[in-house]
């Protein structure tokens, strides 16, 4: 809204001025825009360079600072423009730079304060979570106990209650034991996960993951069942022999992520077709187009 108003105002003003002035103004504006774009690019490059070896919180801080800087720059630019329009024909470059620097410093201080605040908040959140044990904890304990009794201690990589996902018990299984554990989950009478609700893969850049949401209609319990696999040659046993419902979802994961499922009855590219190049949901996917 404000932008629109400004624009209108500008237009009105410029209408009064001679054509020559207009041309000059335009040229100046173009030059300014170029400079701004360059600055943006530089900032981005700097940020990218920095992000490679700094911790995440640093990154966030940097980003916030960069954003604030950009804002400040825009503000400074705006001010300069107003000044210019008022008649002070040439604002010296050095003035502008000085203003920019001052604004940047201000923004930096603000960002610092903000990040400090956010870490504080995080700490308090963590404390709260630890204080209340989940209602599903005893289910998880039972699953772990039964699995470790029958299959040994070495099959699980990790297990926890996922508080973000309605407290669903989550187990991460070692990929060598994937099929064995899945089979056990289905046929063991204490677990009896007879229903596969969801199966999909994800690319986490360091590894691939296959996420399965199981449900037991006998025990009325949910379980998230995950396995981490190698990203470069993603390969894992198929669950289709256990749950027929895993058939198409595995095809989808193969199609979009390139995960190969051993023992799948008919693994094919279900969505995109066999002539598609690449697997789109991989984070490093580059679209291939013959016409480009």
């Amino acid at each position: 809204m404000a932008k629109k108003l400004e624009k209108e105002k500008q237009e009105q003003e410029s209408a009064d001025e001679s054509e020559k002035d207009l041309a000059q103004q335009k040229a100046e504006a173009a030059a300014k825009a170029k400079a701004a774009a360059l600055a943006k690019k530089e900032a981005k490059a700097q940020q990218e360079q920095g992000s490679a070896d700094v911790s995440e919180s640093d990154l966030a801080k940097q980003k916030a600072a960069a954003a604030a800087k950009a804002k400040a720059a825009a503000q400074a630019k705006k001010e300069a423009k107003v000044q210019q329009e008022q008649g002070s024909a040439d604002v010296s470059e050095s003035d502008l730079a000085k203003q920019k620097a001052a604004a940047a410093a201000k923004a930096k201080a603000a960002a610092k304060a903000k990040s400090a605040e956010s870490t504080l908040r995080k700490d308090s959140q963590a404390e709260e979570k630890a204080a209340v044990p989940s209602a599903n904890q005893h289910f998880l304990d039972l699953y772990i106990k039964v699995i470790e009794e029958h299959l040994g201690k070495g099959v699980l990589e990790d297990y926890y209650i996922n508080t973000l996902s309605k407290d669903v018990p989550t187990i991460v299984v070692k990929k060598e034991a994937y099929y064995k554990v899945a089979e056990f989950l289905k046929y063991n009478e204490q677990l009896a996960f007879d229903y596969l609700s969801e199966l999909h893969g994800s690319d986490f850049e360091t590894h691939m993951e296959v996420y399965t949401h199981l449900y037991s209609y006998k025990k009325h319990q949910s379980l998230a069942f995950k396995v981490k696999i190698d990203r470069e040659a993603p390969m894992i046993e198929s669950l289709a022999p256990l749950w027929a419902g895993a058939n198409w979802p595995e095809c989808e994961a193969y199609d979009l992520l390139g995960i190969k499922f051993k023992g799948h009855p008919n693994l094919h590219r279900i969505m995109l077709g066999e002539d598609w190049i690449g697997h789109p949901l991989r984070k490093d996917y580059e679209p291939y187009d013959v016409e480009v």
Partner: protein
Amino acid sequence: MLRTEEMLLNVGPQHPSTHGVFRIVLKIDGEIIREATPVIGYLHRGTEKIAENLQYTQIIPYTDRMDYLAAMTNNYVLCHAVETMVGTEIPERAEYLRVITMELGRVASHLVWWGTFLLDLGATSPFLYAFRDREMIINLLNEISGGRLTFNYMRIGGVKWDAPEGWIEKVKEFIPYMREQLEGYHQLVTGNEIFLSRVKGVGTYKKEEALQYSLSGANLRCTGVKWDLRKNEPYSIYDRFQFDVPVQESGDAWARYQVRFAEIVESLNILEQAVEQIPSSGDILAKVPKIIKAPKGEAFVRIESPRGEIGCYIASDGKKEPYRLKFRRPSFYNLQILPKLLVGENISNLIAILGAIDIVLGEVDG
């Protein structure tokens, strides 16, 4: 001795009874289907890939285009997933508006199914009746959201628009009207001898098979599994309403017909209670930040859509866009059993079996 040979028959992708772009390659021996291979993906738009570059609120319109016959539930599943992660508390009035619009959507979706299923079987007038009454629901939803099919109505933390003046009353008036119409539908179709012979004992499967193939919704309940996420894993405010979960035992197309029909009645019951209970004023959107960031981690939620269990998985790295978004689309899972059901069937039953599963191709292909 007559010489016989198997023949390949291609059905679709542009065939009216497939309800979208869906193709089945059939191997037939005379009129008996020996093998069926579904071919899908014609409507794949890469929603999940697109979503990785969008903020959570920006993804909502994309969900409209998955199951475009019941877009409200799709809206909801995404919002619900984000709200579960963030821990947003939804204002009362917003919850009721959500339930009312979702249940209206469920009735509308089942009406489309009813009409088109019978059209597939050769009965024309039910289709006209169903679409006439569905139009009233569409008008109601249009009035509240500004859209007829793709609503983009829900937001993370509530809904976008409050009900316009008199809207709740209109819904109240619609409920008895629809009940009366359902009576007419029954008289028109349910006892019809031709109809019954087309659906009874057609496309039968057992409870174990249904679970094995990850079926959900009416496709599961027709085998005697009394399971509805609204009842069994209540989300939103569904635990406040009295309603029944209709089940049938026989597992054929006829059972699915009865289950869906009874579901319309139950949806009307929920609607009736919801319009009575809804607070007359109040917030419709929780206090959420302008830019919503889900905390680092992952979540999977599932809710009951008219077609079955619709789920949403979000893996977040704490940014305003999801790192990975995945929808569990019920039609995609439900369709898997089709090749198994078709083997050994007469070719004329193909349409009845496919129609009874009730798929939406926008959802199958994602």
